[in-house]
Every structure is written in C-alpha cells, then in structure tokens.
C-alpha cells in the first residue's frame, strides 16, 4: 500500500480529510456570505455582484465543480467516520451522561451535517436549478418572501451555525494545531466566524421576509 492510501485510510487520515475539506467549505461560506451581503445594498448591488460572478465564465463552472467535489469528499468521509463510530460501540450504555466535554455542536455533528445537506439541496433547487428567465434578484425576493421558506432557511442555517461552532475548532485540533499560546484565539475565532456567517445569512432571510421590496 502506498504511503498515501495508508494515510487516508487510517482514522487520523480521514480526520485530516475532514479538516481540510471543512476548511475549504468554510472559505466558501465566508465568500458566499460576503457576496450575498450585497443584498443589503439593494437590487442594483446584488445584480451587479451576480453579473460579475457570472462574468467569470468557465472559471465559475470550474469552481462549482471543485466545490461539488469538496462537498462530496466531506460528506462521504463524514459518513464513513459516522458508521465506523457507530460500529465501534457494539452495546449501548443503559445510562447516557456527559462528563462535561461535549458541546451541542460536537454532539450533533453528523445530524447537523445531514440537515445542512438537505438544506443545500432545497437551496439549490430554489436558486440554481430553476427557471432563470427572470433575474436572480426576483427569484430570491419571491422565494424568501414566503414564511415557509423563512422557516426552512432558519432551520438550515442554525444547523450550519451549530456545525461550524464545533467544526472550526475541531479542524485545528485534528491537524494538530493546538498550543496554549493561541488556543484562546482559535476558540474566539471559531465563535466569531460561526456567529458572523450565521448572522449575515439569517439577517438576509429575515430582511427579505419583512421587506422583499429591497430587491425590486
């Protein structure tokens, strides 16, 4: 077996994959949140952002394919880890308790992951695999004016926030980046990034519920 397959087949190797793909997905989220913030500045700003993005042409399609590949690797590796971990405890405890290590985020990682997966599918069918004869601003305004979608989006985004709240710190720990010198900075950044991304997206959703005119 080559050193590479041996590494990625090991339990630690799979964690490295989760960390690195998680880091890239986190980077995507930051860019996505920054781009979508143009909605706060109204229809013209948002359409201009969308226009510039699509102006990238085949580069955008290449980026989309890359993103899809990263997502698939993250989901597939996560599923393998989840099933492996279920199998590693063949009999369940009669009494479940936490000694204080777990957080809501860490305890729900596989489940928030599934919520995010379903949410992304809904999100893609809302805005990507849809009739593009109208402008993206009209499509977004129409979908997010409906309280049903507000609810779906807030559930999905809360799941995302919870996932990132553990994932961000966990990513550093899995790559062995841990030292008293900067542990507190990493933890603070975890909350900052998680809070920032979730807040921006949820604010957009709420803004479009109460005032869809901003995109008209």
């Amino acid at each position: 077996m080559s050193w590479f397959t041996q590494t990625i087949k090991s339990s630690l190797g799979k964690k490295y994959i989760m960390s690195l793909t998680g880091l890239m997905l986190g980077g995507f989220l930051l860019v996505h949140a920054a781009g979508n913030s143009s909605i706060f500045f109204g229809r013209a700003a948002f359409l201009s952002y969308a226009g510039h993005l699509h102006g990238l042409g085949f580069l955008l399609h290449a980026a989309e394919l890359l993103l899809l590949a990263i997502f698939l690797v993250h989901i597939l590796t996560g599923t393998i880890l989840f099933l492996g971990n279920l199998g590693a405890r063949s009999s369940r405890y009669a009494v479940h308790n936490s000694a204080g290590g777990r957080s809501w985020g860490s305890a729900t990682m596989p489940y928030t992951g599934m919520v995010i997966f379903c949410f992304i599918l809904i999100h893609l069918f809302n805005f990507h695999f849809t009739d593009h004869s109208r402008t993206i601003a009209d499509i977004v305004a129409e979908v997010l004016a409906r309280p049903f979608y507000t609810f779906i989006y807030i559930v999905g985004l809360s799941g995302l926030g919870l996932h990132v709240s553990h994932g961000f710190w966990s990513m550093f720990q899995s790559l062995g980046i841990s030292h008293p010198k900067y542990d507190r900075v990493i933890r603070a950044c975890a909350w900052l990034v998680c809070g920032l991304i979730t807040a921006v997206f949820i604010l957009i959703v709420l803004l479009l519920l109460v005032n869809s005119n901003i995109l008209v």
Partner: protein
Amino acid sequence: MAAKIISLNLKVWRQNGPDKKGALENYRLENISIDMSFLEMIDVLNEKLTVEGKEPVAFDHDCREGICGMCGAVVDGIAHGPEKETTLCQLHMRHFQDGQTLTIEPFRAKAFPVIKDLVVDRSSLDIIIQAGGFISVNTGSAPDANGIPVPQHKAEQAMDAAACIGCGACVAACPNAAAMLFVSAKISQLALLPQGAPEREKRALSMVQAMDKEGFGNCTNERECEAVCPKGISIRNIARLNREFLRASLLSDEQG
C-alpha cells in the same frame, strides 16, 4: 451534619460471559459507611450476595490506590464515577446521597469485550503498546547525569503524558469508543524526549495502525475523554498525536 451511613439502590450490569446476554439487576444495600471506597461498597454487596448463595459481581481491581489502572466501571453514565481525576477505587461513598440509585455498567466498546459482569478485556490497549516497539537506550554502566539534555518543561510535559495508567476510561467515555487519548499519551511521553526520537516516526505509524485494527472508533474531538481521565491527561496530547502521525506520514521513510 451528613449521616455517616447511607443506603443505596444499585442497578448492576450482570453478564455471565462474553457471548451471553447481559442485563441490569437491582440490589438494595443498607448501612454503607460514607468512608468506604466505591469498590469496598461492591465488596459489601458481594459478601451479601455470597451469604445469600448468589453469584458475586465480577469486577476488576488491584492496587486500590489509584495508580495501577485495573479498576473502572461506568457509574450513572460516567466512567470512574462523578468525581474529577479520580479512579473508581479512590471514589468514596461520601460523594453519594442517602437513598440514591446508582447504575453500574462495564466500560463499553467493541474493542473491550465483556468477560463477565463489570470485567472487560482491555488487551487491545496492550497490543497497541506492543506495536509501539522499543526505544534505544544504552545499557551497561549508569550514564552521566545530564548526559542527554532535556529541557525541564519538556520533561514535565512528558511526565504528564506518562501519568496515563491505561485504564481505558477514555475509550469508555468517548461517544465513538476511540482510544485516541490513551494512544496520544503513550506517543507523547516518548515523542517529547530525546530518548524516543530515533523511532519516533515508526512508532506513530505502527501505533495508529494497531489502534485502527483493534476496532476503536475515530476521534471527533468531543473532549469527553479528557473530562473522565483519572490522571487528567489533556487532549493537547491528541493534537500532538495528530501532528506526529501527519509528520510521519509525510516525511518519514518508514513503511508503517
């Protein structure tokens, strides 16, 4: 003033053998002195059961002073019970209330099959240690003092990692039944010292390979292991193991 004597309702996991089906059984214990250790409380239960002509509860124990790593059970869902940095044998009954119901279960993991009642087979941890191999030290006459320079803080960190008694509570507490805290402590105690340096990469590769082969789960950084460890081993060691394995995978000439 707290009563010196308490009564307890126990639910104890009884299982006759590795392939037998186990179940919780209820026992009532009266007149338990709060100065007893948890294991002495089980001793009292076993004397009672013996007098009644019943099979006593099998449980592991040896030194009963918190240093051998032999004892351990899960009390109300927490490995080694509710006190921090305390083995089951050093847990005293003064930490429990009169009339309290306690559920006592064995350490559960696929890699730790139940032998009987609360006794589990932890030889998978020994197999990981064996996979770690040897370190190179000269035998013969005593070496010169300070012949090998070791920075004081590194020695302290190595000693903190070496405090691991291999009880397996980290595996029992881990939601994924991973052995990462144990393996990371064993890797760290040698990786931090110059004496462990020549075999550093081979050790990381072999021990992780053995850990995976024994059927332990994968670390998802839940931090439950650190919270139950009777020796207070930090998950900073797990980060070091992650570094050691990454370094060995990328840079070493070794083949696992």
